[in-house]
């Protein structure tokens, strides 16, 4: 399973706009490159990324081969109640990678 890094603040005040960041280690092969033997390296990309806050989807994106390696996303959410922030990536082979962090709203 690919290595991931996520950053969610541990605590926030209700109504705060907080920054969420997520990065996944992935080569994002675009399928146009050749290896040292001159044969094409097949496409190998992460195709989807989504984030839910307390079960509700707040961010979803479809990824394409033009993206550089180790895709990194940064976005904002409005803190309303204490709950888990779940991250979900799926690559083209169907491999799912998940990460989660609990946001405590005071």
């Amino acid at each position: 399973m690919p290595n991931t890094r996520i950053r969610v603040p541990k605590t926030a005040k209700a109504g705060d706009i907080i920054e969420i960041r997520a990065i996944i280690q992935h080569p994002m092969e675009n399928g146009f490159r050749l290896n040292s033997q001159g044969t094409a390296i097949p496409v190998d990309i992460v195709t989807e990324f989504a984030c839910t806050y307390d079960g509700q989807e707040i961010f979803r994106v479809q990824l394409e081969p033009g993206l550089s390696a180790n895709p990194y996303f940064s976005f904002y959410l409005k803190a309303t109640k204490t709950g888990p922030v779940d991250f979900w990536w799926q690559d083209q082979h169907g491999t799912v990678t998940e990460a989660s962090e609990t946001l405590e709203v005071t």
Partner: protein
Amino acid sequence: MNFVPAIALAVGLVAAIGLVDAAPHSEPRSGYSFLTPELQQLQDDDFANPGLLWVDQGATLWETAAGTSNRSCADCHGDASVSMRGVAPRYPAYSEELGRMVNIEGQINQCRSARQGAEPLPYESEDLLSLTAFVSNQSAGLPISLAVVGPAAESLERGRAFFYQRRGQLNLSCANCHEDNVGNHLRAEPISEGQTNGFPIYRNLWQTMGSTHRMFAWCNEAVRAEPYAAGSQDYIDLEVFERWRSNGLTIETPAVRR
């Protein structure tokens, strides 16, 4: 009574100082200072710097048992933030066990085969890059302080010869770019001093992490010369020379480069 050792020490010091005086750059400049502000920002970001993915992976490997001994790095060395702090600034160093100079990659593999009873990791493999990045990262912010005495001094001289040797179809030595043309441009790219204080680096061109030896090989190919094998003695010697040129620069691992 301690007369003889004192003289020997004094001679050693003089030799070391004599060499330091001969450094080509009195104030070495990190490759960082040649980057665009955007890339500098990416390197400084303690979350988004992609090299940190490898550091994280290295931290996991540090705790993972391997080989017939079923021991991890942590079982012997304990907390890396204590035991590995200050290691990167003094490598490559002479290994008594191997009887030659080794870099951090070589030392990790030496530990694997001698202590853990595991297969050495292939050069440029994800695992070896991760462990090297993790170990080097523990010394982030410390100045490089390579001691050049005994076998290190011989290795340094061979590395120096390599650095000034013209090679390849373009008939260029390392020094032709990284000393004579520092700050000038190759196409759109400013030429750096070729310092090695940030290795292993995350290179945008490669879209992945790379070791010092991969960079040497890349440079050799760029002047249309046959690169040496990663981990070869020629590159270790060059690494010693490069590290010595970087003396005083702080460790930046994992650095981000173009």
